[in-house]
């Protein structure tokens, strides 16, 4: 059972993750039609509450909600009472009073969405990224994207594969792991689906402890390139102080950047993902970002279907009946 909130991928387990990926596949199907909109959440009100800058995640969630026919309230911090000193709790209580069914929160503080669940009654909370903690919908869309790519390569229907295609796959997550919420959600998703995950970063950008994460840790990216199925490249979170954790950007790129030279050492089938926004020339070379094996735009595209699945499963009680005959 999924819900009532989506705070951490840890709460979903393998089954929950696979269910969301499969529902997302049906929404991806819907998207390929001329009429992209379905009435699944007609009458529901979804609010987005972003306390941090975001382009793709916010747009993606709002597009997803609109395609499900939900009404969308979009609260941006710059125009809100937060600037006047209102607390997160009061902002949430205010939105609650407007009569919403779900709130999608991004906040610079780890745990803010979980705290929101204690302050709100009967409102679904979706974590759209909290501090260094988690970005669950990103973890889901990353898993969705690579499963689809692997399914295509094998000529099978992605939804029929469950977590099968992840078994034995070798995934390297490289870059600023310590300050990355994407890394934590990616690790939880890939681990739950059965892949073998290695975290690769300078020691200062690794989490202090990975006990219980079930991952391997390396500080030598070159050593990992020959035997890998997916390289997940992360941005250096300069705004969160990671700049101080490495001597220079040049040195970071020299050792951990996905350069053209490194990309050429990958097995031909290996894929590259990046959650965006990319800083070309730092963690990923421009040529690599534009390489067909780099799925960055596919990730953005898939984000909508995955977030439709998340909102649908949380808000509709999980019945998929509406999709049958929707096209007729």
């Amino acid at each position, binding site marked *: 059972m999924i819900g009532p909130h989506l705070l951490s991928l840890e709460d979903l387990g393998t089954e929950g993750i696979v269910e969301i990926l499969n529902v997302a596949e049906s929404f991806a199907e819907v998207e390929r039609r001329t009429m992209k909109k379905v009435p699944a959440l007609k009458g529901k009100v979804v609010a987005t509450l972003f306390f941090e800058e975001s382009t793709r995640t916010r747009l993606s969630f709002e597009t997803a909600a609109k395609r499900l026919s939900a009404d969308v309230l979009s609260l941006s911090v710059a125009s809100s009472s937060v600037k006047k000193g209102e607390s*997160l*709790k009061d902002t949430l209580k205010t939105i609650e009073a407007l009569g919403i069914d779900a709130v999608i929160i991004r906040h610079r503080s780890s745990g803010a969405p*979980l*705290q929101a669940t204690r302050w709100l009654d009967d409102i679904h909370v979706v974590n759209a990224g909290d*501090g*260094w903690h988690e970005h669950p919908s990103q973890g889901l869309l990353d898993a969705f994207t690579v499963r689809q790519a692997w399914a295509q390569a094998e000529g099978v229907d992605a939804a029929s594969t469950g977590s099968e295609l992840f078994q034995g796959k070798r995934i390297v997550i490289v870059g600023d792991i310590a300050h990355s919420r994407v890394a934590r959600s990616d690790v939880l998703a890939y681990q739950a689906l059965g892949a073998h995950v290695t975290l690769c970063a300078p020691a200062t950008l690794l989490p202090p402890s990975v006990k*219980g994460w079930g991952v391997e840790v390396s500080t030598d990216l070159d050593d990992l390139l020959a035997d890998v199925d997916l390289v997940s490249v992360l941005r250096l979170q300069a705004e969160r102080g990671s700049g101080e954790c490495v001597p220079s950007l040049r040195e970071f790129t020299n050792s951990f950047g996905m350069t053209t030279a490194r990309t050429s050492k990958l097995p031909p089938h290996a894929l590259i993902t990046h959650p965006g926004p990319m800083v070309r020339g730092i963690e990923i070379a421009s040529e690599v970002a534009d390489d067909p094996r780099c799925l960055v735009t596919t990730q953005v595209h898939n984000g909508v279907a995955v977030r439709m699945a998340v909102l649908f499963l949380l808000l509709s009680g999980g019945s998929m009946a509406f999709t049958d005959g929707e096209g007729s």
Partner: protein
Amino acid sequence: MTTDYKLAQGTLLLTGGTVLGSDGPVLADVLIEDGIITAIGQGLSAPDAEVLDVEGCTVGPGFVDLHTHLREPGKEQAETIETGTRAAALGGYTAVVAMPNTDPVLDSAFVVRAVLGLGATAMAEVAVAGAITVGRNGQELAPMAELSRLGVVLFTDDGSGVQNGGVARRALEYCRGLGVTYAEHCEDLGIAAGGVVHEGYWSSKLGLPGQPASAEEAMVARDLLLAGELGAHLHLLHLSTEGSVDLVRRAKAAGINVTAEAAPHHFTLTDESIASFDAVYKVNPPLRPAHHGDAVVAGLLDGTIDAIATDHAPHTPETKDLPFDEAPPGMLGLETSFSLSYARLVLGEGLSMEGLFDLLSTNPARIAKLDAASDRPFGQSEQGGRITVGRTANVVVIDPRATWTVEGSSLASLAQNTPYEGRKLQGVIRHTILRGEVVVRNGEPTR
């Protein structure tokens, strides 16, 4: 400056309790006349006396807290001297040392006098710790000689440690000359790097910035070296790591003049609590994995750590209902300190009741120079020690078998930030007697 304290007039008789006397626990009645213990023995009687039946209870010296944030002046919405000392009395305390990180900081004679003045009529005796540096800025020394003439014997920049080793060394040296104690909140801010929880498993999993144990230990080590070199008395506040305990143990063996305290939350809670992202569990030093708490307990049992101190730190609901990293650190402690310590040290580790009173009363009284042997520079009555004839009646009566359930809203503090909400604890404070006045009777404050 001496505070002219008043002894309560009248006669009080405690009957049938186990009295912690100078020759160990004895079953006896205790007679208190006009604020002084005048007789201890079986079958005492006194006409016109208020009689408190304390059968099954332990009668001992009132507790002394070396580390109380009374918040006045500056944050009177969270606590005042009046409400904080009421909480102290309910927790069995007859004296508290008020920490100087108020607004304004307790770094001038004027402010210290004001706090002592308000404390003179409070429900527990109020001693004051002065700031080491002006405004706790870590740079210029506060007028410690002037403050010491008012009776201040403990100096600390608590809330933060003195970051600059040169300033710390000079302050220790100056304190030695004055015969007062330099007390440190050990946290190297460079190493702590803005961490809001203990660095390790939980900080990594939850994506919260962590501060490593070494942030505390590095300053413990620095200060021990400085104190040893200068021959100054150093007191270490709220030790919370295995490494800190080990450093102090070795320093004491080497003859360094150091005392140390630990807070109940560091040996009754672990950093697993933060998984709820509830800022009620945010405290500085942070909650840590269990082995650190076990080391603190070992330190309390073998004398490495001299005292249990609460680090009672009230915060208003609106400041604790913030995202974890934005909320201020600190938790209430005065009313839960005894029960928590009793459960862990006496019931859990087999410490004697007298041993627990040493940690809660006698040793902290000595460190704050509030004991009978010291000249008690604030002019206050004697604290700690044992229940003996001729002593001022600063007494607590404990029912070690009774239980109670913690409710933040029922605590006397203005703030409600207890991390033990809903927890059932054993050991109840029945009565607290301050200079002969019953300030807590049957668990209720009398004023």
